[in-house]
């Protein structure tokens, strides 16, 4: 029983890493007032670039760097169109996902079925010997450890540093921030870029560690789930742990039922659950925040014009 639960918990963490990273990146972007619906596309491109770099160089470091940078590079397309040209942020994000999916499918075709580098679980000495907790949290891939560090770091930067204050000011009231001498365009561009790096890293995790290999559908909507989780965790990186774990937990249950061939819940219902649960979470958040002020950055999705 304890063994089963430990197993489920360990897989839950493993399954939540990509959503967690993408969510935190999305929070950074949205806190600056830019909505980027292109996370799914950036994750796919990151997954492909990471896998391809690993395949050709056999170097895990190069692979991770390439995947992360690819996500960041694609995000700059969104930054250019929404910040420099003031295009509609919803449409531009959707276009980014379409473009990213197309690029990944097109460039990745020759790599289907190939082998690349694999980043395996790396138990942390001593910590992983702690009963249950060690197995669950400290017998994971380096990506999970990176997430353990990056998530609190993102929170700290956003809420405890001057940089974070400026970033949030731009997202809450770009005009006032501008009057106070903040470079709104630059702040937003960098925030979008950092969000892209996170999404790229999340994708790299999928293709190098979680399900090593390249498959065109390998993100399976995790980028969209991340966008919902941003709302769920009220734009706070620390709460993103819980949102991502919800998703990871359901995925782990799915594995568990499959592994033990239990027929408690039909498999197609299990497959639907992460999506249905995400919708449920959105409903809960909306229902509970009806009479309160929304936690959303006030200038989210609003283009900034200096000359008006």
């Amino acid at each position, binding site marked *: 029983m304890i063994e089963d639960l430990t197993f489920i918990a360990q897989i839950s963490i493993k399954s939540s890493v990509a959503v967690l990273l993408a969510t935190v990146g999305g929070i950074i972007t949205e806190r600056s007032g830019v909505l980027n*619906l292109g996370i799914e596309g950036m994750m796919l491109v990151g997954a492909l670039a990471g896998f391809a770099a690993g395949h050709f160089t056999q170097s895990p470091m190069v692979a991770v760097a390439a995947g992360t940078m690819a996500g960041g590079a694609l995000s700059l*397309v969104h930054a250019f*169109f929404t910040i*420099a*040209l*003031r*295009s*509609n942020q*919803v*449409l*531009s994000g*959707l*276009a*980014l996902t*379409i*473009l*990213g*999916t*197309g*690029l990944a*499918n*097109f460039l990745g*075709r020759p790599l289907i079925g190939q082998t690349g580098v694999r980043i395996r679980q790396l138990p942390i000495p001593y910590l992983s010997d702690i009963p249950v907790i060690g197995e669950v949290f400290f017998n994971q891939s380096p990506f999970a450890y990176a997430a353990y560090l990056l998530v609190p770091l993102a929170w700290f930067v956003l809420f405890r540093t001057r940089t974070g204050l400026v970033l949030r000011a731009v997202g809450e009231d770009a005009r006032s921030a501008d009057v106070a001498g903040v470079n709104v365009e630059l702040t937003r561009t960098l925030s979008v870029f950092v969000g892209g790096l996170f999404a790229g890293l999340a994708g790299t995790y999928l293709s190098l560690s979680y399900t090593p290999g390249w498959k065109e559908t390998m993100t*399976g*909507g995790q980028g*969209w*789930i991340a*966008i*919902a989780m941003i*709302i769920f965790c009220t734009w706070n990186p620390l709460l993103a742990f819980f949102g991502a774990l919800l998703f990871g937990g359901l995925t782990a249950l799915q594995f568990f039922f499959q592994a033990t061939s239990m027929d408690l819940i*039909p498999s*197609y219902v299990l*497959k*639907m659950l992460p*999506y*249905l649960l*995400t*919708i449920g979470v*959105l*409903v809960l958040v*909306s*229902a509970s925040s*009806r009479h309160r002020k929304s936690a959303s950055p006030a200038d989210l999705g609003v283009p900034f014009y200096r*000359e*008006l």
Partner: protein
Amino acid sequence: MIRVAKRKQPLRYQGAVATFSAVAIALVVGCVIFAALGVNPLTAYTAMGKGVLSSVDAFSEVLVKATPLIFTGLAVATAATMMLWNIGAEGQLVWGGIFAAGTALFLFPGLDGWLLIPLVLAASALGGMVWSLVPALLRAKLRVNEILTTLLLNYVAIIYMEHLFYGPWRDPAGYGFPGTAQIPEAAQLVRFGGTRISIGFPLALLCAVFLYYLLKKSIWGYQVQVIGKEQRAAHYAGFNVTGKILTVMALSGAFAGLAGMTEVCGIHYRLQTGLAVGYGYDGIIVAWLAGLNPLAVPFAAILLGALFVGGEQLQSVLGLPSSISLILEGALLFGLFAGQTLARYTLTFSSRSEVPS
């Protein structure tokens, strides 16, 4: 330093300028991709053009692809007119297909065509409508963001459809092939000449005209447009915004459902993989390329259809993956944004940032 300033007077043919630049920019992006792959862009575009225009058969395939695109384009445009985002046309298309196949295979398998076809048609519209009403209700009653709910429901719809044709609906005589049995002949749409164009195509055109007049000539359409442009004004004018969200999304879902019907009853004749190939997402591009004008939607759909058929040609002639059309689609949309900017603003390039006069 690039400076963006609003034009004093907007350009006269804003929409046309934007669409034209979208195509131009997509063509340029295509050139870059082909060149990067070591393929002469001219050779590639010639192959695409030949594939589309060389014969009646070839061009008829463009209209075959355009048929579902018109429906999903109308679906997205209907919702977007009221500033609602229906990213769920894919899932609504799937439910339209499920309802169409279910009606033809299991509910009324023995009916004559003149009775069965209208029933299948209504069923598919209903299927799409039911699926779009879930996010519509959540949006109208609880203000749940419809972008995410419509999108996430796509995954649910596809998983359910796969469950149906891998499981309970699987053709018992299909040698384990995932898919339902063929729908009865009475439910198969009439095709024109020797082509694969079915009556679904003129039906799609009819729907475009219908939506145009509905939006332009009815009080309902007028209110929808006002709500889309000025939500607050509409509120003060006493328009029933909640009710409009439901009716607009229902109509939007019905259009997408019809796309599923024309695919199942006009092309595949069964429910199988290949129904959800992204027409729902392509509808977003169709709608915005058309500037949300229902009468322009068929043209945008044909343009995209030509892109798909051309992309398939690239695969068979030059051996390039046909997913290049997906990249060009993305480029088309980004090109549209650039075009919109050009139409609305002037760009001035200067070496230093200057104080605006």
